[in-house]
């Protein structure tokens, strides 16, 4: 069922050697390639037929669901709307991700719109990797959107990674964080050549005692460009932090715009942001431990994107 290219892509985006255990839904070139549900995790197509609904029963523990997307058809621009309903007190890992394998001259793209309804007390780890492979010259475009609604005392940790090959990425992350809920987003993006990536984040700390920590790490090589915007709006007594760092190599350019808005007197919001070349003292240190310049640069970037 999986050809060699599919396997390669699955390995890159989802760490899968083969069909995963537990619940999964594999989409290839706009069509369903395979689906499995479990006793606690149901997956079905939505009414319009343009996406899936993943329904996780309350109290589900230590289960995971894989929903990778493979794109290898020139000229295809796939749009999909997925909804995740995570039941009360569930504790699950969702592994998403899209891999484009481009063999031709035509562009290929995927836009995944993911909506999360996280019920009270539920805990989610969401891992999303994007990659583009193949020798084709067509533009590879990935425009992911996540919309997160968090109920009381819920928690989500989102790891969003794009480490190579994607020519154009426009990301939107929206989240509304309820009472006592915690949102953690870590975004890692590396671009090269003429690639562009931008990320727009609208985070609303809506409930008392809500928390958000937004971390962005960007490495901008070649002539590529990356922009990162985040609006962190506090409407209750809450705690929010933004940390965004960009390392520019070669002729890369970057805009980083962290904005804090406290619409409640007890909000505590902080941010740190930096844009610059690899720090000289870091390079000197690694070189004094015996690494040549290029190896030192590599190690610093590796650590930075970890």
């Amino acid at each position, binding site marked *: 069922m999986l050809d060699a290219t599919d396997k390669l892509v699955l390995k890159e985006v989802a760490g899968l050697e083969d069909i995963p255990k537990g619940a999964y839904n594999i989409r290839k070139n706009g069509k369903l390639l395979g689906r499995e549900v479990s006793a606690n995790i149901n997956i079905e197509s939505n009414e319009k037929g343009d996406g899936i609904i993943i329904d996780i029963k309350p109290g589900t523990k230590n289960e995971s669901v894989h929903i990778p997307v493979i794109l290898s058809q020139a000229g295809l621009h796939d749009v999909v709307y997925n909804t995740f309903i995570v039941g009360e007190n569930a504790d699950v890992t969702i592994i998403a991700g899209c891999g484009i394998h481009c063999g031709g001259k035509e562009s290929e793209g995927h836009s995944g719109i993911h909506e999360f309804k996280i019920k009270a007390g539920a805990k989610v780890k969401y891992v999303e990797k994007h990659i583009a492979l193949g020798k084709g010259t067509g533009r590879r475009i990935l425009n992911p959107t996540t919309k997160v609604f968090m109920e009381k005392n819920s928690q989500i940790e989102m790891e969003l990674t794009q480490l190579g090959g994607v020519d154009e990425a426009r990301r939107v992350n929206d989240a509304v964080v309820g009472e006592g809920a915690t949102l953690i987003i870590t975004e890692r993006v590396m671009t090269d050549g003429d690639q562009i990536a931008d990320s727009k984040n609208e985070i609303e700390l809506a409930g008392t005692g809500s928390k958000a920590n937004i971390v962005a790490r960007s490495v901008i090589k070649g002539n590529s460009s990356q922009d990162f915007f985040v609006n962190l709006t506090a409407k209750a007594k809450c705690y929010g932090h933004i940390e965004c760092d960009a390392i520019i190599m070669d002729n890369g350019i970057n805009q980083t715009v962290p904005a804090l808005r406290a619409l409640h007197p007890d909000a505590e919001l902080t941010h740190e942001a930096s844009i610059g070349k690899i720090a000289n003292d870091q390079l000197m240190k690694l070189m004094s*431990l*015996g690494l040549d310049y290029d190896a030192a640069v590599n190690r610093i970037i590796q650590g930075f994107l970890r």
Partner: protein
Amino acid sequence: MLQLQNVTFKVPDSDVKTKLPLQKTIVNDVSFTFERGGFYAITGPNGSGKTSLAKLIMGINELSSGKIVFDGQDISPLSIHERSNAGIVYGFQHPARFKGTTFRDLLSIAAGTDDEETLARIIARVGVCSMSFLDKPVDSKLSGGEIKKIELATVIARNPKVAIYDEPDTGIDLWTIGPMVELLKREQKEHNTTTIVVSHNKAFLEAADTLLLVRKGRIAYSGDLKGAMPMLEDLSVCTFNEPCQGENDARCYR
């Protein structure tokens, strides 16, 4: 074995009044030979050029003139990593802080392996930092003392022929200074490491066979601690020599 021959380090500067470009001499025509397996302490006032001298040896600062010869080879043209691979390692006064890079990463680079047992052995040998440090990012969250311990461990992990420690005791608690001195002495004895410690700490000055006193970019004295005492006392009398107009005018209460 490590010879400094008329080593000079100048940096661009400008005249305060005329704004004309000038050169400022930071290390001024220093010649000295460090013998294999010796324990040296370098001391001197802030800004006298100790760190600059150490960085010249490591290749971090570029020589303006002069020569550095190591085991008979002129290493002046060698880059930092080449000098490191030749056996010279410098522990920074202000160690770099990273994002993401952990103590384990630095130690593995230094040791040339990420083998868990080897790393554990190095940590046991260093003694001053615990295994629980291993997966800590070497970032701005570390305390001043913690990062200095990590810095020290990465130097020792390389089994250097020449180890230069730049103020290793900064931020280190009182109870760790003694063991740190013992550690460097043990390394010196067991591995015949030429040990150079930049410090103001009496414990290191006493541990050294030879003391170098640096003033205004020159070696003002080299020899044993006893011989240096008059000069050290002289330096410690008053650190506001220049701005101070003298005891009577400034009503000095020292």
